[in-house]
């Protein structure tokens, strides 16, 4: 042990949010506000309750994206799991986690996706679940493919899964993307590179986890999510 006193709270407050304006991601140029946001006291955000979700019908099968059609989708079957925690490391229980992604060929079911890659009649690519008492979520899906996106010549998105979480308060709402370890497209991607600090980018990359992997069946990836805010109470009262 060294004699240094480490200011743990100060360290844990480090944030790695991307800026609104990031010219390498061209769509930010006309959409990033020019005005600075009006700052509200931190506690107003933390005290403001987020949306109530008691009414959302989340079914068990919504968390398995490989069993939403007559047959299984093509692609590499994977499990993605992790914990949803607050800034104090406490589990965020019973909170809605929504995911969506391209299929194994790099094509979204979305009608505005015109990428010339095949749709898979057995894959929608959307799922949802609620975290359990330990803050755990778990999805079964197929690994999404990379796809081109016209941001610049020869621009390709690394494989990713979109995540949307609500958490207990206004400040905990987040929409983000999870990436896969070792993807050679990661350093070339303006959307992930908008996070200046490599430690921040690391937070969005899952790790291959043999404990999550199901032998002879599916590779497992582990990805924990930290929502902004402290002393989160269980979402349902």
């Amino acid at each position, binding site marked *: 042990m060294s004699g240094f006193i480490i200011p743990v709270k100060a*360290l*844990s407050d*480090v*944030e*790695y*949010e*991307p*800026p*609104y304006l990031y010219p390498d*991601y061209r*769509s*930010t*140029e*006309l*959409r*990033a*506000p*020019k*005005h600075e*946001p*009006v*700052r*509200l006291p931190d506690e*107003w955000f933390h005290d*403001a309750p*987020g*949306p109530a979700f008691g*009414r*959302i019908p989340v079914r068990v099968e919504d968390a398995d994206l490989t069993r939403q059609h007559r047959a299984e989708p093509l692609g590499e079957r994977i499990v993605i799991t992790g914990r949803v*925690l607050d*800034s*104090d*490391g406490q589990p965020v229980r019973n909170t809605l986690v*929504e*995911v*969506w992604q391209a299929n194994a060929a790099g094509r*979204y*079911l*979305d*009608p*505005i*996706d015109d990428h010339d890659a095949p749709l898979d009649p057995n894959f*929608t*690519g*959307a799922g949802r679940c609620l975290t359990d008492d330990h803050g755990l979520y778990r999805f079964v899906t197929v690994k999404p493919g990379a796809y081109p996106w016209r941001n610049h010549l020869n621009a390709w998105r690394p494989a990713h899964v*979109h995540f949307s979480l609500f958490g207990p308060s*206004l*400040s905990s*709402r*987040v*929409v*983000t*993307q999870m990436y896969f370890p070792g993807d050679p497209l990661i350093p070339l991607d303006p*959307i*992930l590179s908008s*996070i200046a600090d490599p430690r921040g980018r690391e*937070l*969005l990359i899952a790790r291959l986890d043999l404990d999550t992997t199901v032998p002879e069946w599916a590779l497992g990836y582990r990805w924990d999510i*930290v*929502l902004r805010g402290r002393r989160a109470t269980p979402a349902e009262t």
Partner: protein
Amino acid sequence: MNSPTPSQTVGPFFGFALPFENDANAIEKVTRAPAGESRDAIRIEGQVLDGAGEAVPDALVEAFRGEQFARCRTDGEGAFHFTLHRPVASDGAPCFEITVFARGLLRHLHTRMYFSDEESANRADRVLQLVDESRRHTLVARQEGDILHFDVRLQGEGETVFFAP
């Protein structure tokens, strides 16, 4: 270290996955009487516009207050709509929290929609008081007949006021 997981854009391709069916209408989903809220249904319509004044056809707009939550993907004209119960004043003037996601927004934006016929409550509202008077109008919906209009200008002239902690 418990740094919050950073945000990334919602991208353009969320429409097939979010929102749920009939998500823009919060009225039918509130199973019990919304506590402390008016029973009057209100229709809110608006448009999301970029810094060139062009419609943003791939935005997701969420509105919530208390038990009510609604979300709507913008259409080809950047238009969105909600059907909600009118909130009553609690701590401050009645309003909806509005959250905006879009392709090109690496992080979401947070704003508020207030009501034009609540002038005295709006004047006393502690959040509105933090906003420069010349920009407060961007947070107040325009009443036209039975419809409340609330546009979100992401950038440029008449830029909507956004809030952050």
